[in-house]
């Protein structure tokens, strides 16, 4: 045994060794002032290491008082109380007059009389119609030494009456036991008693432990300064013992994943932008050429704001008017528009932003110059119920690329470059539809186990979107389903777990993904 014994284990071994005889854990606990369960677990550990062994394992039987037994231990047996009453009355009384004496409850009368007669303390005679009780001469002495009562008293005082420790003679004890059982005054219970001794191996461990007192455990500045370490040995440490779990400060894996996507996009030459979480209908929908009366703009597609009531402000009146005209009749864009009456009141209404494309058009309105490459990864809100595949609050990553001469092929090229950047090699393109782009693309990626899934939407902004914002060069718009990618990377099947409330998972999840 090369390693140092823990301090308490050492004390136990030491005491056991010096006692020179088998001890029970209770004795050790009392002697060393250690809690009984502490001693039990130390004993268990020492037994496993074969430093101690069981000497004797015996079963101890003892009596524990029942409720009735407790009662008679406190108040004394009814037959004894009967004797006391009779003694006070001069040695005799009628049975009926017993009712006057509170010392004995009426329910106990028959019991008391019966046992008192059997014990020879009382005799019953008839005087006319009445029964009378006569005290015998020996009764008063007998009750003060009555073994059954003594046994009850002892049991009450010590909690139990162990067969080993009674000091009645065998015949009396047998009688007491019979009374216990017959009158249901006490129950017999069994308990295991163990005594342990130190083994030769244990003795060796103890000696080694004493020797180790000379080895250096903690290297301190004082030991260093005094150069003591030159003449002493170092106590080896058990490095193979399992280490306790630690919970360091740690970043959130979902936020980390998003951060990595962010850095990849920056590396591809994109500039980050952001926008307000509460948006105007103008930027959330109108500027994206979504007609104001479209069914998708009703209560099921975005959260309308009750407080503050609004309306918000359209800061750029020129752009607002150009967008309005485009909706109504196409304006200069060459389109027919949506052929309805545009409302500025609707445009200024407040909603929780439902798509990050709102950030893209805001950016475009503020930077209508080529070339431009912008991205945003930000929160959006939609009236959805929360379940494994839907969330009312989610991140979207979207961006735009603007410049002279940009084409559909360039859009496909960018989508492929972005996909490769986040580690996706298997990508195929499908024509798609978005109200604000034409032509549109849906990039599908292959996820093992799930098949082909849509993950990279994109398209060329319609002239009805760009021209009213003052932009006359092609603008490619693209998106990445980052929540879906994050779920795949982190091995999560339930979208709600991206913002997990499980501290245990956060503590244990690996940051290598």
């Amino acid at each position: 045994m090369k390693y140092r014994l823990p301090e308490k284990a050492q004390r136990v071994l030491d005491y056991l060794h010096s006692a020179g005889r088998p001890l029970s854990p209770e004795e050790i606990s009392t002697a060393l002032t250690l809690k009984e369960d502490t001693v039990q677990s130390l004993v268990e550990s020492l037994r496993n290491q074969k430093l101690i062994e069981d000497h004797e394992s015996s079963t101890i039987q003892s009596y524990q008082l029942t409720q009735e037994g407790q009662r008679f231990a406190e108040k004394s047996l009814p037959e004894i109380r009967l004797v006391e009453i009779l003694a006070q009355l001069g040695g005799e009384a009628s049975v009926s007059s017993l009712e006057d004496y509170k010392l004995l409850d009426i329910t106990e009368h028959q019991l008391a009389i019966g046992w008192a007669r059997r014990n020879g303390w009382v005799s019953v005679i008839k005087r006319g119609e009445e029964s009378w009780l006569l005290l015998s001469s020996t009764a008063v002495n007998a009750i003060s030494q009555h073994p059954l009562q003594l046994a009850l008293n002892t049991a009450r005082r010590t909690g139990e009456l162990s067969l080993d420790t009674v000091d009645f003679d065998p015949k009396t004890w047998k009688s007491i036991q019979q009374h216990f059982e017959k009158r249901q005054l006490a129950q017999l219970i069994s308990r295991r008693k163990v005594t342990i001794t130190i083994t030769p191996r244990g003795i060796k461990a103890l000696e080694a432990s004493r020797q180790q007192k000379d080895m250096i455990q903690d290297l301190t500045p004082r030991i260093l300064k005094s150069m003591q370490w030159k003449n002493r040995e170092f106590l080896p440490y058990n490095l193979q013992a399992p280490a306790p779990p630690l919970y360091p400060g740690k970043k959130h894996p979902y936020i980390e994943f998003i951060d990595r996507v962010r850095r990849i996009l920056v590396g591809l030459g994109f500039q980050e932008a952001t926008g307000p979480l509460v948006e105007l209908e103008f930027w959330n929908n109108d500027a994206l050429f979504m007609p104001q009366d479209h069914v998708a703009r009703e209560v099921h597609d975005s959260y309308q704001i009750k407080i503050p009531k609004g309306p918000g402000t359209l800061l750029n009146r020129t752009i607002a008017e150009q967008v309005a005209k485009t909706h109504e009749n196409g304006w200069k864009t060459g389109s027919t528009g949506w052929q309805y009456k545009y409302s500025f009141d609707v445009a200024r209404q407040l909603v929780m932003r439902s798509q990050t494309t709102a950030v893209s058009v805001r950016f475009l309105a503020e930077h209508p110059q080529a070339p431009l490459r912008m991205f945003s990864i930000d929160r959006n809100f939609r009236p959805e119920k929360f379940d494994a595949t839907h969330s009312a609050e989610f991140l979207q990553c979207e961006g735009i690329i603007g410049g002279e001469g940009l084409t559909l092929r360039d859009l496909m090229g960018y989508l492929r470059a972005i996909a490769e950047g986040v580690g996706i090699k298997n990508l195929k393109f499908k024509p798609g539809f978005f109200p604000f782009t034409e032509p549109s693309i849906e990039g599908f990626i292959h996820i093992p186990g799930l098949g082909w899934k849509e993950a990279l939407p994109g398209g060329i902004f319609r002239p009805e979107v760009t021209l009213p914002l003052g932009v006359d060069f092609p603008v490619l718009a693209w998106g990445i389903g980052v929540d879906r990618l994050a779920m795949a990377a982190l091995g999560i099947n339930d979208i709600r777990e991206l913002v997990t409330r499980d501290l245990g998972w956060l503590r244990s999840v690996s940051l290598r993904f």
Partner: protein
Amino acid sequence: MNVDVRISDLLQLIGRNLSLEELEENLFLIKCEIDRIADGVATIEVNPDRVDMLSTEGIARALRGFLEIETGAPKYPVKKSKWQAIVDRSVAKVRPYLACGIVKGLALDDTLIAEFMQLQERLTGTFGRNRKRTSIGLYVLDLITPPVHYRTAPPDAIKFVPLEFHEELTAKQILRDHPKGQEFGDIIKPFPRYPLLVDAKDKVLSLPPIINSNDLGRLLVNTKDVFVEVTGTHKQTTLQSLNIVITALAERGGSLEAVDIVYPDHQEQLPNLSLTKREVSLDLINATIGYDFGGPAVTRALKRMRIDAKATQKVIQVGIPSFRVDILHDVDIIEDVAIGYGYNQIEPELPKTMTVGQELPMTMMLRTIRDLMVGLGYQEVANYVLTNTRTLFEKMNQRIKTVVEIANPKSMEYHVARNSLLPGLLEFLSLNTAQELPHRIFEVGPVVTINPDAETCTDTVLHLAAVTVNSRVDITTLKAELVTLLSNLGLKGKVTKASDPSFINGRVANIQIGAQQLGVLGEVHPLVLANFGIEAPSVAFEFEILADWVPKMGS
């Protein structure tokens, strides 16, 4: 939108026995996805711009073109008939437009009848703006005595047996008791007179847009000749809806006949299935897609998309079928060229323009803050912005203050936007009481405050908050962490005594950074701990991160 299509039926209409894989691949390339297949029925997802494909007939027609079985715009000859539909002046204020057509010689079975009802529902759903813009009715031609009259009548004067019912109901009763009346009644309720379609004998065809009559408006298996009617508030949508339904019926072998729609001041003969003519510049097509197509390549691609096309030197002259409602602009035709060419044939290209990528300076600042908090031993946590007033205020022992509130929440769990981070962190901790102590968590994220002067009447503001829960907590350690954090951010902060009902009196302070009060620090009040079911003491701080702390690059 999803369309359920019987695969055997679809293949028959296409005219080629495709394998499932071929079908799926080709559908993919014309914007459709097969969602699932069960018992020979495929659920196909169709994009909202192709409402002409909301039925098996429309999908088959598109695939016949794409597979080059039948290219160019389909021809649907329309014979003249003697039928008229007379529009009364009074509908102009209620539901002004009527479009009608006749289809003869159909062989309908129960399945087809059911499928055409589905087509009507889908079409009038989004495209018809839930029947507000248009609604559609199909009738047994032989039961109608022409001319049809489209007029209005007072609600009490309208009485007929609605579809699937057995007794006559008044319009009022229909709006009140019939499910379609309850669903769509609001469209006509505001008007003193409701629109009504009747025949020459005054038999009711329908109460648009609510419900057909059971006598004339129920197609049966032996019905050969059908009268199609569309009413609406938007002219173009009304005409286009007629075109889509009637060409779908034509695809089932019906022959088309016209109806004269007689308005008070003009007449129209419908259906008008003539092609819309446009011209698109070949250069624009090539500049947008990124190839150098010649005329033949473009016309071939468009013909695959069922669009007639003829190339001249500089321009492609196109004839767009009457059922295409999505062509508003040149770019819509250009997309069809790309689809007709094949999205899987287009080679991606990466342009050589150079731009410099950059993160928002605030992003970099937040990363520094997060790194420092991790260095102090805190676990990062992410919570939703959406929350409820019980968590934000009541459980925090605060009175309810005004925050951004949603008018149409899906549940009262998420009906306001948070104005601070601490409640969400305490909520997080309340769900982790079984985890080993200490719990040390932080969050950096946006909160929303109300600002009447702002563009959106709100400000989106970034906060940092941190909470420690342990069997013993030490507020001086927390203060030391705050001080270290601020100092490592180059900020000067101090604390000033404060009182805050979420914290123990005498153990809470305001955090002042620079000249502004930006946050709070303290030991969490036992009432708050009890409300969240947190069984050990806790200290916490939160403060706002100002945009102008962010150092300017290169300064």
